[in-house]
């Protein structure tokens, strides 16, 4: 009987279903595991690093434009370097790969500091003071969000330091 020569309709459907299921299962196991969720505290650290780098760029721009401010600004700039290494302590550099050593490790900072090349000393100082206050507020907010208590304390200290910098810039 012809009906026995070929597979029944039900068998075909079942086999197809099994194939789909099998491929779905295999795709589950063969695909790489999704990356672990980003630790919110890590994001806070990254943002703090970016703020410090922006401030350093702002200081460098002013130092270039108004060199007579160097003695006054360098101690403040140094404190931002301290902030940077406190948030992200320099780690032992991993073995550089060929591609990594080809391009110099220049940190890219997305936000250009809002301090233009200031024509006057007063404007340059006022611009830096404003940038410090903005960073102080952002660090303060981050301190409230940090899950890790020592990180909260560190961000609070950075915020307080930057809140106090305008005193030296006035």
């Amino acid at each position, binding site marked *: 009987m012809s009906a026995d020569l070929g597979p029944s309709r039900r068998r075909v459907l079942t086999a197809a279903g099994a194939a789909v299921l099998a491929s779905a299962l295999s795709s589950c196991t063969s695909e790489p595991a999704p990356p672990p969720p980003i630790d919110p505290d890590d994001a806070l650290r990254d943002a703090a690093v970016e703020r410090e780098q922006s401030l350093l760029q702002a200081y460098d721009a002013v130092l270039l434009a108004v060199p007579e401010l160097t003695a006054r600004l360098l*101690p403040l700039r140094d404190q931002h370097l301290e902030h940077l290494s406190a948030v992200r302590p320099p780690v032992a550099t991993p073995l550089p790969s060929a591609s990594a050593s080809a391009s110099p490790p220049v940190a890219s900072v997305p936000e250009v500091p809002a301090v233009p090349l200031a024509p006057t000393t007063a404007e340059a100082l006022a611009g830096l003071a404003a940038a410090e206050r903005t960073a*102080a507020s952002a660090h303060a907010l981050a301190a409230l969000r940090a899950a890790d*208590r020592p990180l*909260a304390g560190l961000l*609070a200290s950075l*915020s*307080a330091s930057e809140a*106090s910098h305008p005193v030296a810039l006035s």
Partner: protein
Amino acid sequence: MSEPLLATLLAAEHAAVYGYGVLGARLEEVSRAAARTAVVSHRSRRDQLVALLRSFDVVPEPALPAYDVDARTPAQALALATRLEDGLSVRWRDLVVGTDDRSLRELGVAGLQETAVRAAQWRLLAGDQQVTLALPGVA
């Protein structure tokens, strides 16, 4: 438990209010206005801490009759003011690190900012080379 931290802060604010009373009289006129502003701020934080402790059903400790502070010259007065503010910075930071409560942390951050700014003002008036700290509140 943040009550012990708040109690320690209250004790430090009591001492600061007393200390400014001592040092204010020794300051030169140019610095005296800053001391008046500072003592108003410390009284306000003190009262806030008293209210907070009461809200936690803790009886706030009153101020001591006297504190071991001394300032005989304007320079000593500026140094004492700086020391009081730097000391308070440590306490306010302790509060930040010692709590997950958002409003208490906010209070701690605000207190730390205020004391760091005032300490910088005092160092500026004293003619110090380094006016600000990289990490206020870190003892």
